[in-house]
């Protein structure tokens, strides 16, 4: 079992969600996050003063899937979230030791 985590541009969330629905993904978790990558932050001017803004808003998407599905999920996210510009984000996959469905107590692949 794998956890796929993706950091993408906020306005791409709809496209990513639609792409994942198309390949039959049953559930995902979304959070609003901030951070920076190679693009770093930037300066902004407000009321005549210049400010350094270190963190850029992003959306984090988390999906738990089986071994085989993980590669398809990664492909779908990369394809749908890409604009070709700096700041498009990252996707990574981590291995999960255990999953439990809270309602039934099912474990492992049954809980997916």
């Amino acid at each position: 079992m794998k956890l796929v985590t993706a950091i993408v541009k906020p306005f791409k969330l709809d496209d990513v969600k639609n792409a994942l629905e198309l390949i039959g993904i049953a559930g995902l978790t979304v959070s609003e996050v901030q951070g920076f990558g190679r693009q770093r932050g930037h300066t902004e001017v407000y009321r005549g003063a210049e400010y350094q803004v270190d963190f850029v808003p992003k959306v984090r998407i988390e999906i738990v899937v089986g071994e085989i599905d993980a590669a398809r999920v990664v492909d779908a996210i990369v394809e749908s979230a890409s604009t070709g510009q700096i700041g498009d984000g990252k996707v990574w996959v981590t291995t999960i030791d255990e999953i439990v469905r809270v309602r039934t107590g099912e474990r492992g692949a049954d809980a997916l």
Partner: protein
Amino acid sequence: MDTGNTAWILTSASLVLLMTPGLALFYGGMVRAKSVLNMMMMSFGALALIPVLWVLYGYSIAFGDDVGGGLLGDPTEFFGLKGLMTDDPEAALPAMAFVGFQAVFAIITVALISGAIADRAKFGSWMVFAGLWATIVYFPIAHWVFDFTLTGEDGVVTHTGGWIANNLKAIDFAGGTAVHINAGAAALALALVLGTRRGFGRDAMRPHNLTLVMIGAGLLWFGWFGFNAGSALAANNTASVVWVNTLVATAAATLGWLLLEKLRDGHSTSLGAASGVVAGLVAITPSCSAVSPIGAIIIGLLAGVLCALAVGLKYKLGYDDSLDVVGVHLVGGLWGTIAIGFLADPDAPAGVESLFFGGSVDQLWRQVVGALAVLVVSFVATYIIGTIIQKTMGFRIAEEDEVTGIDQVVHAESGYDFASLGSSGATAPLGGQARAEARNIEGSRA
């Protein structure tokens, strides 16, 4: 010079001015959190621009001597309000009191339109539109409706006014046609020019702060007493009848909207109460001098029901009139204007007969013609102005910016700046800095 009348008109003008910040709250609460500032800024933009145009040439186009057919006042007669500062002891009211009272009508009429283009209009394009629309559409139509022909004691015409007020003789006491049908038809045209927001009809796009909406509706109601009772242009019996009619029609409309919601949806909502208040105010605006208080209750109750039904049309017909300017102001304005033909009571200050009081259809056709003339002219002219702006400077922001949020992208601010993670605090922590990000990209490429 009657100081009592003057005091009342200056007070009424101030009340009507307060309606536009009230409208900013009413509209601001209805959009999503990421657009609240832009929504309010469109009203404040009208507050900033229209008084300047009004002083320069707007008042003169609306209330200058007619230059032909009752369509337009002479723009040069009172250019820069020349000649209006002198005290005239013979006048019923100082000229400047009337100038001020009518100025605030122009402001709110322009601001009303902004509700149709929430979340997606470039601020600069809105300001250009506001100036063009006031000049080409509002000032002339105000002349049609509000500028009455004056005759001296010897029967000689001293001032020629507009065609709806003097030739057609339709009754529009405080602006059902010039303000509400006008703004509502313009809103429909502009919603069609700009197109729907991303996610329209799919996402709920619920109001982000209904407490703001209700404060705004309350301020509108308060200010509207200046709008309607002030339109008597005197502190007299007419103003008092109008005041009571404005109170009771608004109350009845609120009841009507809430009742319809309860029966149809199972809940009476606060948005319904706020919308019912405005629907009632709109419908009683043209008719407040022509009907009895019982007539006002009937107009209000039906306005609440009709407008509550009308706001659903945009989903069926596919136009994104975001905050229901069409459903409330166009429909409510049409109803209130035409209702005079059915419910006008000869005992009311306007003293005209109607179908149900006296059996005459004479007033009814005058009302219908006046209402439709303003509707058609406003819609067509607005569609042309909007299309020209769209094709030249562009009217809509980029789709990415619309999703990120117009406040952040266009105004570099956010309505609710909660704790931020080590950033400056001057810009929003969450919700996007896409434009700044784009600048950064260009910088790194260079």
